[in-house]
C-alpha cells in the first residue's frame, strides 16, 4: 500500500508510534514534505473529522488521531520551515478577563492543534491587551476567545475594538465561542466569526486557511 495512504490509515487508528515510523520512512524515500503533509497527515485527519461528524468516532479517538498526526508533524516541521512551506496558521486562544471557565476553550485548543494549527494558549482571565500583544508578537493570524458568563462577554468587544484601532483587521481575525455568546453577538461586536464547538472551529478555520 502507498505509504501516504498508510500514514492516513494509522492516523485514523490513532497509532502515534506507527505514524512516527511511517513518516520517517516517507522522508527517507524523499517524498516531498508538502505531499506527506497533505496526502498523509492532513488527509488522515480529514477522514477522522468526517467520521467524528457522522458520530462514527468520538472525541477520544479524534484526540488520539490528533496525537498521532502530531507525531508525524514533529518530524516534517523542520523540513517545511527549511523549504519555506507555510505551516497551518497560528491561533492565540484564551478565556476572557473575569472568566475562569476554560473547559470549552481547552477542548477547542486540543482540536485545533489536532487539525494542524499552532496553538498559543493564554489560559483564562486573559486581558484584551494580552490577546492582542501576543498575536502581534507571535505573528498569529487568529485570536480565539471564550466566555461562559454574560458579564464577561463585553471583553470580547474590547479585543475586537483594539484590533480595529490598531488597523490590524487585515492581519488578525477574531473568533468567539462559549455558552454566553452567539452568531448574532459576533456580528454585533464585529468579530470575524462565531464557532459553536471545537469541531466547528476546525471546520471554519479549514474553510478559510
Amino acid at each position, binding site marked *: 500500500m502507498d505509504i501516504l495512504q498508510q500514514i492516513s490509515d494509522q492516523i485514523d487508528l490513532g497509532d502515534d508510534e506507527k505514524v512516527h515510523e511511517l513518516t520517517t520512512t516517507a522522508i527517507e524515500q524523499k517524498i516531498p514534505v508538502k505531499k506527506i503533509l497533505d496526502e498523509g497527515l492532513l488527509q488522515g485527519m480529514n477522514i477522522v473529522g468526517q467520521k467524528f461528524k457522522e*458520530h462514527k468516532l*468520538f*472525541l*477520544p*479517538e479524534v*484526540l*488520539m488521531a490528533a*496525537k498521532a498526526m502530531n507525531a508525524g508533524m514533529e518530524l516534517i516541521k523542520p523540513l517545511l520551515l527549511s523549504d519555506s512551506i507555510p505551516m497551518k496558521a497560528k491561533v492565540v486562544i484564551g478565556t476572557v478577563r473575569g472568566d475562569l471557565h476554560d473547559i470549552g476553550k*481547552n477542548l477547542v485548543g*486540543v482540536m485545533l492543534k489536532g487539525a494542524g494549527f499552532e496553538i498559543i494558549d493564554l489560559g483564562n482571565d486573559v486581558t484584551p491587551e494580552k490577546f492582542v500583544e501576543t498575536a502581534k508578537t507571535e505573528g498569529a493570524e487568529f485570536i480565539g476567545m471564550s466566555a461562559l458568563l454574560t458579564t464577561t462577554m463585553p471583553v470580547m468587544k474590547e479585543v475586537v475594538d483594539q484590533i480595529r484601532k490598531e488597523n490590524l483587521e487585515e492581519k488578525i481575525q477574531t473568533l468567539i465561542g462559549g*455558552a454566553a455568546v*452567539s*452568531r448574532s453577538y459576533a456580528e454585533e461586536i464585529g468579530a470575524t466569526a*462565531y464557532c*459553536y*464547538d471545537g469541531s*466547528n472551529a476546525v471546520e471554519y478555520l479549514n474553510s478559510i486557511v
Partner: protein
Amino acid sequence: MGIRPVTHFLEDNLIEKIISEARDLLCNLGITLHNKGVLEVLSGYGAAVDQDKYHVRFTNDIIDKALGSTPSSFKLFDVLGQETHDFSGNNSHFTPGSAAINILDNQTNEIRKPTTADFINYSKLMSGLTNIASTSTAFIPADVTEKISDSFRLYLSLLYCEKPVVTGAFTIEGFETIKDLQLAVRGTKEELAAKPLTILSCCPTSPLKFSDVTSQNVVDCARFGIPVEFISMPLSGFMAPVTLVGSIIQHTAETISGIIISQLTNPGTPILYGGSPAIFDMRYETTPMGAVETMMIDCAYNEIGKFLGFPTQAYISLSDAKRLDAQAGLESSMGATLAVLSGINNISGPGMLDFESCQSLQKLVVDNEICGMTMRIAQGIEPKEDFPSIPLFQELLKEKHLLISKHTRKYIREEHYFPGKVINRANLSRWKEEGSLSLTEQANQEIERLLNDYQPSRLPEDIKTELTRRMEVEARLNGMDKLPE
C-alpha cells in the same frame, strides 16, 4: 458484574394469595371455552366439562400438571438460524407493538390504512433498529384480502427482515399458512421446534373466555412446538374488577387457562406469560395503554409469571397519543423503563400509538432509542478498573483531562449509551445551524438513512422463492391473482 436493578410491586404473600384466588376461580367458576376438541381433552383429564354450554371447570391437579410442564425459559432464532433471544431470568428484549389497523404516514402526518409498500418499508427499517431484537407483524396491510392478511404480514417479515417475528393468526385456517411459511424457512418440523422462529400471540377474551380460534391456535402451536404468548386483556372497572389486584387475579386465571390448553396438548411447549391488560378510562370509554395503572398491572402480573417460574411478556412501552409528541415519548419511555426494571422478558410496544391501533415508523426510530437507554439501565453499575482510584486521578490532575486516557478509551462505549440523532444533544447554536430540526423531521431523516442503508436479507434465494410460491398459492385460493408490491 454489577447488580441488575429490578423493581417489585408485589410481596410474595400477595402473589401467593392472587394465584390461590385465580385457582379458585378456575376450579369453581370455570371458564367459557368455545372449542369442542379442547373441551374433550380437558374432560379426559378430569375437568368438569359442559359441552353444550362450552364451559369448563378445572381441577387443581390439571393446573399443577400444566404449570409443572411449562418451560422456565426458551430461545428464539432468526431466519438464518442464529440465536437472538434468551428468554430467561431478567433478560429483556423489545419487539414492536403488533397488529395495528392504521399507520401514521410520516410524509403527510395523517393516520391512514397501511399498504404492502408500508409493510416492506417497515420491515427494512426494523432491520436497522438495533435495540429492537425481534420484528413483529406490526400492522395489517389493507391492500390484501382479509383472509390472508395475517400470513401475508409474516411472509413479508420473513422476506425482508432477518429477525425473529412476533405474530398471530386471525383464523384457524390462517395458522396453516403461518406454520407452512416457517417450515419453508427451517426445512422440517423438528428443526422449527428446535429453533423457534416466531412467537404467536394468543388472546383470551375477557372475562374468562377462550374463543374457538384462540383455543385452536394454542393447540396448533403446541403441536408444532411454536412458542405462544398469552395476551390476556382484563379491562379494570369494565371487563375486570376496578382494583389492580382484582384485575391481576383475572389475568392470572385467564393466562393459566391458556397454559393448560397448551401444556395438555404438548407438555413442554414454550410459552410467554404475557398480556395486554389496561384500565378502562370512564371518561373517554377507552383503554389507555399509557396509563400508569396499566403499566403497574403489567409489571405485577410479570411478577406472578416469574413466581411461577415462566418467562414473561407485556404490551407496555407504547402510547395513546395520535402523533409523535411529548405524550408519545413520556408514556412509551415510562413503560419501557418500568418494563426493563421489572425484568419483563419480551417487551411489546415500540412504534405503537392510539391504543394499539396505529403504528408509526417515526415513533419506532425514537422508541429504538428509548429501548437502548433502558437496556443501559438494565446493565446497572459495575466497577471497571476503578479500584484503586488514585492512579486515575493522578493522571487526571497531571493531564488536566481524561479524554484520551486508556481508561476512557477502553470503557467509553460500554459505559455510555450513545443514542442516534433523534435524541438531540447538540448545543443550541449547533442545533440551529443544523436546521433547527423538530423531532419528526429528524426521525424522517433517520428513516430515510436507514432505508438507504438497508441490506437485503441473507435468507437463501431458494427459500425466498419458496416463501413467495406458498404465499401466491394461498392468495390464489383466496381470490387474489397476484400479490401486491
